[in-house]
C-alpha cells in the first residue's frame, strides 16, 4: 500500500488541521461536547484575544476535570464583558470579588473544597495582566508560596484595557498607552527592566508554569489540560492581543499573536518544579518590525523617519529571549 504523507499544518498558518487527526487527539473546541463555559453573547470587542483565550482555556479545563471547574475572576475586561447584570456568559460556578485578590479568593475556595469534600472540583483564578503582575501580585505570590491547589491564568494584553488602555508592568517598551503617550522625546512606554511573571512564578518552584498564546490554541489547550492534571499552585500566562488597546485590526488578532511568538518577543515554554522542560522552537523567525508594524500603539516608531534605534532595542529583547530560552533549533 502506498503511503500518503499527512499534512498536519495548513499552509502559512501553522494551524493544526483538526479533521486530519484521530478523534481523541482533536482540539477540545472541535468536540461537539465542549462546554462553552464562556458562552457566546458576551460583550467583548471584535477580535478580543482575551475572550478567545478564556474560552479555550476554561473549556479545556472543564474537559480535563469532567466539568468540575470553579473560576474566580479578577476585575478587568473579562469580568466586565462576561457579566453585565443580569446576564452572565459563565456556564460554570464563577465569582468575581476584587481586582487584586483573585489568587487569595481562589485559595480560600480551594481550602473550603479540601475541608468539605468538594465533589472533585478544581479551582481556577484568572485575571488580566494588571490584576496579575501589578495589583494582584502579592496575593499571587502568596498563593504560589503556599502551593495552594489553584491554577492561575493571566490573560496578558499588556495594559489596563478595561479602564481605557493605561500602562501596566506588562506593557512593552515604546508602546503607546493612555498614560505613556506617544509624545515628547521618548514617546511611548519606558525601557525598564521588565517584569517576567512566568519566571517569577518559577522562582517559587511551583509544580507547573507555562506560557501560551492564542496563536497556538491547540498548545494552549494542551497546557491547560496538563496543568489540571497536577495538584498545587500552577500558573499559565497567555498572550492575548487586544485590538482596541493595541490599535490593530480585529481580524489580525491571531496573526499578531503569532508574530509575537515567531519573532521571539513572546517565548512559549513550560516549566516543571521551577525548571524549563519544553520550549516552542521558532519555525520561521521574523523580525520584530513585522509584529510592531501591525499595531498603532507602535506607530510612532514608523513615522517619516523610522526610529531605527528603538526598533533595534526591541529586536535585541527578542534576540535575548531566543538565546536564553533556546528558541532556535541548533
Amino acid at each position, binding site marked *: 500500500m502506498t503511503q500518503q504523507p499527512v499534512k498536519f499544518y495548513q499552509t502559512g498558518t501553522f494551524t493544526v488541521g483538526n479533521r486530519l487527526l484521530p478523534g481523541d487527539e482533536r482540539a477540545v473546541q472541535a468536540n461537539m461536547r465542549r462546554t462553552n463555559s464562556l458562552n457566546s453573547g458576551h460583550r467583548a470587542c471584535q477580535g478580543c484575544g482575551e475572550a478567545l483565550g478564556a474560552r479555550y482555556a476554561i473549556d479545556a479545563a472543564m474537559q480535563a476535570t469532567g*466539568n*468540575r*471547574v*470553579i473560576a*474566580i*475572576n479578577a476585575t478587568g475586561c473579562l*469580568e*466586565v464583558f462576561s*457579566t*453585565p*447584570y*443580569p446576564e*452572565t456568559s*459563565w*456556564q*460554570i*460556578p*464563577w*465569582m*468575581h*470579588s*476584587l481586582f*487584586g*485578590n483573585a489568587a*487569595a*479568593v*481562589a*485559595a*480560600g*475556595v*480551594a*481550602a*473550603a*473544597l*479540601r*475541608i*468539605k469534600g*468538594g*465533589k472533585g*472540583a478544581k479551582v481556577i483564578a484568572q485575571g488580566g495582566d494588571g490584576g496579575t503582575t501589578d495589583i494582584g501580585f*502579592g*496575593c499571587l*505570590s*502568596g498563593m504560589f*508560596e*503556599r502551593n495552594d491547589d489553584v491554577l492561575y491564568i493571566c490573560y496578558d494584553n499588556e495594559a489596563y484595557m478595561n479602564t481605557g488602555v493605561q500602562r501596566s508592568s506588562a506593557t512593552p517598551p515604546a508602546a503607546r498607552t493612555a498614560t505613556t503617550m506617544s509624545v515628547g522625546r521618548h514617546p511611548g512606554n519606558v525601557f525598564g527592566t521588565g517584569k517576567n511573571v512566568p519566571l517569577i512564578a518559577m522562582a517559587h518552584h511551583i509544580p507547573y508554569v507555562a506560557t501560551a498564546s492564542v496563536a497556538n490554541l491547540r498548545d494552549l489547550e494542551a497546557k491547560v489540560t496538563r496543568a489540571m492534571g497536577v495538584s498545587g499552585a500552577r500558573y499559565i500566562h497567555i498572550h492575548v492581543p487586544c485590538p482596541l488597546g493595541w490599535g490593530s485590526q480585529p481580524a489580525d488578532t491571531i496573526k499578531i499573536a503569532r508574530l509575537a511568538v515567531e519573532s521571539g518577543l513572546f517565548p512559549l515554554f513550560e516549566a516543571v518544579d521551577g525548571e524549563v522542560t519544553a520550549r516552542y522552537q521558532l519555525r520561521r523567525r521574523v523580525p520584530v518590525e513585522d509584529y510592531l508594524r501591525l499595531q498603532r500603539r507602535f506607530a510612532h516608531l514608523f513615522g517619516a523617519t523610522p526610529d531605527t534605534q528603538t526598533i533595534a532595542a526591541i529586536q535585541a529583547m527578542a534576540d535575548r529571549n531566543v538565546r536564553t530560552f533556546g528558541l532556535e533549533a541548533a
Partner: protein
Amino acid sequence: MLKQIEGSRAIAEAVALCRPEVICAYPITPQTHIVEALGEMVKKEEIEHCEFINVESEFAALSVAIGSSAAGARSYTATASQGILFMAEAVYNAAGLGLPIVMTIGNRAIGAPINIWNDHSDSMSMRDAGWIQLFAETNQEAADLHIQAFRLAEELSCPVMVCVDGFILTHAYDRVDIPTQQQVDAYLPRFEPVQILDVDEPVSIGAMVGPDAFFEVRYLQHHKQLMALDLIPRLADEFRQKFGRDAGGLIRSYRCDDAETIVVALGSLVGTIKDAVDGMREAGHRIGVVSICSFRPFPLAAVRAALVRAKRVVVVEKCFAVGIGGIVSDGVRKALAGSQVPTYTAIAGLGGRPVTQKSLVGLFESAQGDALEQLNFLDLKRDVVEREIARGRKQRRAGPSAEAILRDLRALRSGIPLGAA
C-alpha cells in the same frame, strides 16, 4: 467551665467551639494571641475539619475568607488597626457579596503616628461597610459574642465584626466561663449557605451591576441590618436560656431608672464608667450608663427609649471623626432627634490614653451643671497642643509634630527649659 485565662485565649476557645472550617490570619498586635491559639488548636487537630491558612497580608486574609465562605465553609479571621485598613476593599466586598464571615477586631488606634494601643478608630473606619459590629464589654462577653456572631451572620448571610478592646480585654487575664461543645452545638446549627459555588448548580456571584439595580442591592444590605435589630435581641434571649448568662443584645442600661444624667459608651470603657457611676450614686447623684453592644445596626429606637427621659446625655467615645467630632454621638443625636435632651460628646482614650475614674467623675459633674461644651476632649494636654501650634507658627520648616511633641514632653519631665534642645 470556669477558667482563669487571657481574653485572646477565651476568644480563641469560643471560636473553636463554633467549628470553623477555614481560619486565615495575618499577625498584628493586639490580635496575635487569638490567631496563634487557633493555629495551634488546628495543628493539634483539636479543631476538626479546619484549615488554618497563614497569608501574606490582611487583604489576602479576608479575601481567602471570602473565597472559603462562598464555597460553603464557615470562615473566620481577625485583625486590628492598620490591618483592617489594609483589607478595607475586601471588608466592603464581603458585605456586598453577603458572605457570613466572622472577624474579631482587637481594637487599636490607627497611625500615623503609629501606635499599638487601644481605641476604636479601626472598626469605626468601617462602620458603613455593611458589617454588623458588636462591641464586647468584658472578656466573658467577648467569648460569648463570637458564638452569637456566627449564628447571626449565617442567619442573615451578613458578615459580623466582634470588636474587643486591644490589650484591655485581649491581653487581660480574667475568669471566663467557656461553654461546652454540646451547649454551642445546640445553639449554633450547621452552616447552610444561601449561595454557594457548586459545580452541580453553577451560579455567577459578584457580577457587574449598573445603575438599574445597584441601589436595590445596596438597600438590601440595609434591610439585613434592620432585620438584625430584631434578631440580635432574640439571639441574646436564646443565649441566656441556653447558657444561663447575659451577653449581647442591642444595648444595656445600668442604674438608669431615675437617672438625670446618662452616659453612653461602648466596649470595656463601660466597666470603668459603671464604677464611676456607682461612686457618684453613693454621693447621691442620679446618674446611669447605657452601653451600646450593637453599633451596627445602630439601635436608634432602643437608644431613644433608654435616653429620652434623661436631663442630659454624655457620650464618651474612643474614636474621633477629625474635622467634626464624635461618631457614636452622631448616632445618639439621631436617636434623640426632636427631643430636648442635650447631648455632650467626650472624646477619650485615644491611642491608649488611660481613661481614669477621676477624670470621668470630673466630666460627669461638669455635665450635671451643664458646664460642658458640645465637644470635649477628656485629658487632652492643651498646653502641649498650644506650644506645638505656636512653634509651627514661628517657623515654616517646623518638622514632624509627633517628634516635636515627644521632645517637648521629655523636656518637661526632665526640667530642661523648652527651646534648649
